[in-house]
C-alpha cells in the first residue's frame, strides 16, 4: 500500500460544501418535524419598570392560536440554570427594553405574530438607565475578579515625567453579532425526552443550561446542531428563546418552532458593549515604551454583569516597565452584553494600536519599527516564555508583501485626484488554548473499502469544523477524506469543547488525532504482531481481516502548555482611499498576516481570516447599534440601519500565514484563527485614514460625517 497523501495542511474543499450549496445542509429550523406549531415571542416596550397586568384574552381568541404564555402561566424555571440575559417569564420586573414577556403559539408564524400584537400590557414605568454618556461617571470596579486592576511599576510618575506621551480616550459603540441565522429553535418532546434543534456553539453547554433551567436531567435533553448559520459568540452561552421553545412545546403538547426576527435580535442574544478606553502611552525619544495604562469604562445589564476584556492585548503586546490595566462598569437597562468575535481584543486593539500609531507619529518613527523596538522577550504580564511568537515576522512579511515602503510618513500628502490615500498597520493577538474533548472513531470494512465515522459533540459555525476533522482523521487513519463520515453537533455524541474563544480547531483536531493514535495502538495490540514500521489503522483493518473496530478517547490539553504563554499573533495592513469631498472611505486593499501555528486547511482558514477582516472593516467604518436613551430601544434594528459592509465596500483582501511549528501549545500545534482575524483590523483602517487625511478619529465607526466635520 502506497503512503497516503497527507491532507492536513492542504486547502481541500469543504466536505459539507455540496450540502451547503444545494441547500441540503440543515440549520435549526430546517428539520422536517411533523405537526409543528409556531411560536412568536413578544417583548417589553419599556426599558425599566414592572408589568402590572397582561391581558391576553383577545390574543387567545385570534385565529389559529394555541396558547399564550406569560409569567402568569409559565412553568417554574430555574433562572440560574445557565441561560444568559433573563426573559424566562418568571418575573414581572423589566430589566431592559425588549425583554421577553410572553410567547404566542399558533398554527402558523403569521397567526402567532398577529396575535402577539393583540396582547395588552400595562406597566409601571421607571426612568430607564440607558444614557451611557451620563451614567459612565457612576461606573465602578467589576465583580468579575479577572477584571481586577493589574499594576506594574509606577504609571503616574513615569507618565508625568515622560517626554513623548499620549493620554486619549478611544470609543467603540455597541455592536451586534447579527449572524445570518437568527436564533431559532425547534423543540420536540417525546415523553420525558426533549430534543432541541438549536444553533449551539457549545453543544454540551446548551444541553446543560437547557436541562438546568427546565429542572430536568441533562440526559433527557438532546441538542442537535450539525450546521450553524454563524454565531460570533451570541450562540456560545444560550438565551431564553431556547427554553421558551421547550415550554411552549410542552404546553401545547406539540413540537414548536420559534425563530427570532432580525428586529428582535437586537435585544435577545446579547451585544458587544460600548467601551470608553483611556490610553496613556509614553516612550523615550529612542522609542522605548515607558508607560502603558489601559483603562476601560463600559456598561453591563441590570440583571447581570459581563465586561469584555479590552485590556487583554495590552497585557501581552509590548515590553513596558510601567503598566496598568483596569476596568469600570455601570449597570444599564440594556440586554446583557456577551462575547463577541475577538472579545475585548477587537475593541482593545483598536485603542492600543491606534495609540501606538499616534505615538510613533510623535516620535517620527515608522510604526512598524516602533512596534519591533518594543517587542517583549517574555510575556510581560507573567514572565512566562512564549511558546512561539510571530509579531515581528508578521510585521516584516506583511510590510514586504504590502509595499509598505510606498507609505508616506507625513499624513495627508498622498493625493490621487479627489482621493487621499493612506496606509495603516496594526498588530494583534489572541490566546491559543486547547480544551477537553472526547472523540469516537468507528471503522467499518467491506472488502478493500474502509470507512470511518468520527463522532464528537463539536460544532461548525460555517468555519470548516467538519472539514478539518475529516482531514485529521484521514491522515491519522490512512483513509481518504471521502470515506470519512464526520458526525458532530449532537449532544448524544462524546462531549467536546465549543467553537468559542478559538479553542475549537485545536480541541477537536487534537481529540481526533489522539483517537487515531489510540485506535491504531489498539489494532496493533489486537494483531499480536510486531511491525518494523508503524502501520496505519486502515492497513491493520485489512491485514487483521476485521469488519468493525471502534474506540473512544478523552483528550486533554497537556499541562506543559501552562508553563508558557500561548497566543496567535497577526499584523494587519490597510490601504484606504478617502474621498476628499464626501468623506467616504474605501478600504482598497487589506492584508492580514497571521502566525497561528499549524494551519489545518489554508482554504477554510483564509475564509475565516477574511471574514474577521471584513467584520473589522465594518467595525472601523460602518457598524453601530444606536440606543435612544429616552426609550432604551435601539433605532438600528434591521440591516437597513445596522450597516455591515456590502461587497462594494471591500477591496482586495489578502491573507498570509506564517509557517509555525509550536508543539508546546498543543500536540498538533494548532492555535486557532477565528478570533485573531478581527484583532487589529479596525486600528489598521483608522491608522490608514489618519495617514491619508491627517485626521485622527478616535470614536468608531468612522462615518463620512466625522471626517468632513474635521477636514
Amino acid at each position, binding site marked *: 500500500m502506497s503512503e497516503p497523501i497527507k491532507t492536513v495542511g492542504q486547502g481541500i474543499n469543504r466536505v459539507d460544501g455540496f450540502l451547503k450549496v444545494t441547500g441540503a445542509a440543515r440549520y435549526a429550523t430546517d428539520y422536517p418535524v411533523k405537526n409543528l406549531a409556531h411560536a412568536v415571542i413578544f417583548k417589553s*416596550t419599556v426599558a425599566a419598570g414592572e408589568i402590572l397586568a397582561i391581558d391576553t384574552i383577545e390574543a387567545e381568541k385570534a*385565529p389559529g392560536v394555541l396558547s399564550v404564555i406569560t409569567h402568569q402561566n409559565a412553568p417554574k424555571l430555574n433562572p440560574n440554570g445557565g441561560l444568559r440575559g433573563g426573559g424566562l417569564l418568571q418575573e414581572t420586573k423589566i430589566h431592559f427594553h425588549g425583554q421577553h414577556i410572553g410567547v404566542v403559539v399558533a398554527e402558523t408564524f*403569521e397567526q402567532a*405574530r*398577529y396575535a402577539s*400584537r393583540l396582547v395588552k400590557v400595562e406597566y409601571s414605568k421607571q426612568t430607564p438607565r440607558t444614557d451611557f454618556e451620563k451614567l459612565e461617571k457612576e461606573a465602578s470596579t467589576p465583580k468579575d475578579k479577572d477584571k481586577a486592576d493589574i499594576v506594574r511599576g509606577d504609571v503616574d510618575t513615569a507618565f508625568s515625567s515622560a517626554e513623548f506621551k499620549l493620554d486619549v480616550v478611544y470609543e467603540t459603540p455597541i455592536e451586534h453579532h447579527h449572524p445570518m441565522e437568527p436564533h431559532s429553535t425547534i423543540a420536540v418532546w417525546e415523553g420525558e425526552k426533549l430534543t432541541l434543534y438549536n444553533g449551539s456553539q457549545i453543544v454540551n453547554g446548551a444541553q446543560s443550561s437547557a436541562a438546568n433551567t427546565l429542572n430536568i436531567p441533562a440526559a433527557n435533553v438532546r441538542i442537535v446542531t450539525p450546521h450553524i448559520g454563524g454565531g460570533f459568540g451570541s450562540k456560545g452561552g444560550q438565551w431564553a428563546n431556547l427554553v421558551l421553545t421547550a415550554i411552549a412545546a410542552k404546553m401545547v403538547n406539540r413540537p414548536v418552532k420559534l425563530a427570532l426576527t432580525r*428586529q428582535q435580535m437586537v435585544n435577545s442574544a446579547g451585544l458587544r458593549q460600548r467601551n470608553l478606553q483611556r490610553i496613556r502611552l509614553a516612550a523615550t525619544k529612542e522609542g522605548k515604551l515607558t508607560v502603558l495604562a489601559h483603562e476601560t469604562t463600559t456598561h453591563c445589564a441590570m440583571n447581570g454583569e459581563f465586561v469584555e476584556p479590552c485590556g487583554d492585548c495590552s497585557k501581552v503586546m509590548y515590553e513596558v516597565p510601567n503598566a496598568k490595566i483596569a476596568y469600570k462598569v455601570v449597570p444599564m437597562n440594556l440586554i446583557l452584553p456577551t462575547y463577541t468575535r475577538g472579545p475585548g481584543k477587537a475593541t482593545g486593539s483598536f485603542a492600543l494600536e491606534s495609540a501606538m500609531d499616534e505615538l510613533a507619529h510623535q516620535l517620527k518613527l515608522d510604526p512598524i519599527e516602533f512596534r519591533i523596538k518594543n517587542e517583549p522577550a517574555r510575556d510581560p504580564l507573567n514572565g512566562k516564555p512564549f511558546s512561539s511568537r510571530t509579531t515581528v515576522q508578521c510585521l516584516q512579511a506583511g510590510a514586504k508583501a504590502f509595499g509598505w515602503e510606498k507609505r508616506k510618513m507625513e499624513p495627508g500628502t498622498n493625493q*490621487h*485626484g*479627489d*482621493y487621499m490615500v493612506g496606509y495603516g498597520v496594526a498588530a494583534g493577538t489572541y490566546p491559543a488554548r486547547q480544551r477537553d474533548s472526547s472523540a469516537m472513531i468507528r471503522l467499518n470494512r467491506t472488502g478493500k473499502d474502509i470507512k470511518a465515522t468520527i463522532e464528537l459533540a463539536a460544532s461548525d459555525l460555517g468555519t470548516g469544523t467538519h472539514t478539518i476533522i475529516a482531514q485529521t482523521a484521514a491522515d491519522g487513519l490512512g483513509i481518504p477524506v471521502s470515506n470519512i463520515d464526520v458526525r458532530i453537533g449532537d449532544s448524544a455524541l462524546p462531549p467536546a469543547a465549543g467553537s468559542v474563544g478559538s479553542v475549537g480547531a485545536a480541541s477537536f483536531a487534537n481529540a481526533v488525532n489522539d483517537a487515531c493514535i489510540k485506535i491504531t495502538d489498539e489494532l496493533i495490540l489486537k494483531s499480536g504482531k510486531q511491525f518494523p514500521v508503524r502501520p496505519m489503522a486502515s492497513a491493520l483493518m485489512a491485514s487483521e481481516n476485521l469488519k468493525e473496530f471502534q474506540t473512544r478517547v478523552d483528550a486533554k490539553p497537556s499541562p506543559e502548555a501552562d508553563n508558557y504563554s500561548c497566543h496567535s499573533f497577526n499584523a494587519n495592513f490597510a490601504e484606504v*482611499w478617502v474621498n476628499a*469631498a*464626501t*468623506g*467616504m472611505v*474605501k478600504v*482598497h486593499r487589506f492584508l492580514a498576516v497571521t502566525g497561528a501555528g499549524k494551519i489545518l486547511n489554508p482554504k477554510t482558514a483564509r475564509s475565516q481570516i477574511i471574514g474577521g477582516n471584513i467584520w473589522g472593516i465594518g467595525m472601523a*467604518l*460602518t457598524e453601530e447599534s*444606536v440606543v*435612544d436613551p*429616552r*426609550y432604551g*430601544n435601539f*433605532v*438600528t*434594528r*434591521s440591516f*437597513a*440601519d445596522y*450597516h455591515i*459592509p*456590502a*461587497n*462594494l*465596500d471591500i*477591496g482586495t483582501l489578502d491573507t498570509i500565514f506564517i509557517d509555525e511549528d509550536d508543539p508546546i501549545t498543543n500536540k498538533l500545534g494548532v492555535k486557532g484563527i477565528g478570533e485573531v482575524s478581527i484583532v487589529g483590523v479596525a486600528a489598521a483602517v483608522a491608522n490608514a485614514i489618519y495617514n491619508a487625511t491627517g485626521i485622527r478619529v478616535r470614536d468608531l*465607526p468612522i*462615518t*463620512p*460625517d466625522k471626517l*468632513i*466635520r474635521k477636514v
Partner: protein
Amino acid sequence: MRPFKYSTINDIKSATNRLATNDNARYLAGGTNILDLMKEDVERPDELVDISRLKLAAVQPITTGANKGGISIGALGKNTETANHPLIRQAYPLLSQAILAGASAQIRNMATNGGNLNQRTRCPYFYEVSMPCNKREPGSGCGALKGINRMHAIFGWSEKCVAVHPSDMCIALVALDAIVNVQGPNGQQRSIPFEDYHRLPGDNPEKDNTLNPGELITSIHIPRNNFADRSYYLKVRDRASYAFALVSVGAALEMNGSNILTARIALGGVAHKPWRAKEAENFLAGKPATVENFRRAAEMEMKNAMTLEHNDFKVELGTRAIVRALSQAMKGGKHEELPA
C-alpha cells in the same frame, strides 16, 4: 401579520374602484416596501389590491402633446428595467444613475416606479410601533425631533415631523421636471408636476404626497431636455452600496458656450420631499461653470438649512456634495472607478 384580503385586478378601473369602496385597501406593486411595513405592523391595510398585472410597464417616447419628444415611464415598470432601458441611459442618464444608486439589485428587480414614488420614510421611529410617531399615528408625537435624528431633514420640516423622503429615483425626477400622471376612482386623470407631488409635513405628516384617495399612478413623464451630456447623481452614504443617502445630489447642466444656460440641482436625504435647490439654480444661470460659482451656489442654498441635534453635518456635506456633483456633471457625469 394582520389578516387581510388579497385581490388581483386586470384593469385600472377595477383597481381604483376597489380603493374607492374600501378606505383601508392599498395597492400592492412590487411589495418591497408595503409588505415590510405590514410585517412590522406599521401599515395595517385589510385589503391588498395587486396591480402588478396592469399593462403599465412600458418605457416609451412621448409622441404627442406638450411633452412630445420626452419619455413616458410606466408606473409598473421595474426600477431595474427603467434604469437600464437604452432610451433612459442615452437621454436621461441622471435617472438611470439615481435608480441604480438605490437599494440593491434584488430589490430594484422587484421595485416598481410607482412604488418608488410612494415608498414611505425610513425614519426608525416610524418603523417601530412602540415609539411615538406622528406619521404613523397622528398625535402620538415625533420621536425623532428630539431623538436620534442624524438621518433626518434640514429643510422644510415641522415640529410634527422631521423625516426625509428616502427615494433616489425621485431626486432625478424632480430635477428633470417630471410629471406624475394619475387616474382616480371615477376615471378622472390628473397630471401633477413632480415638485408638487410630494409634500412637506406641516401639520399632517401622515400624508406623504398629494394623491387623492384611490388615485393610481399610471405613468411618469419626463420632458425632453439637453442635460444628457452633463448630469450626475452623487449619493453620500455610510457604506458604498445598499444604504440610504446621508445627502444625495442630482445635478444637470445645459451650457451656452462656457456659461451655464440652465442648472438643475435636487437634493435627497434633506427633506420630507425631493428638494429642488432653486436658489442655487437661479444663481448659476448665465454664470461660468467654475468650482468657485458652484461653491457659492451651494452655500447660498445650504444657508437656509435648519439643523437638528445630530444632523448639522449635512450642511457642510450638502455643500460639498453639490459642488462635486456639478463638477462631475461638467466632466461628463461618469462614475469614477478607483485604480486597481
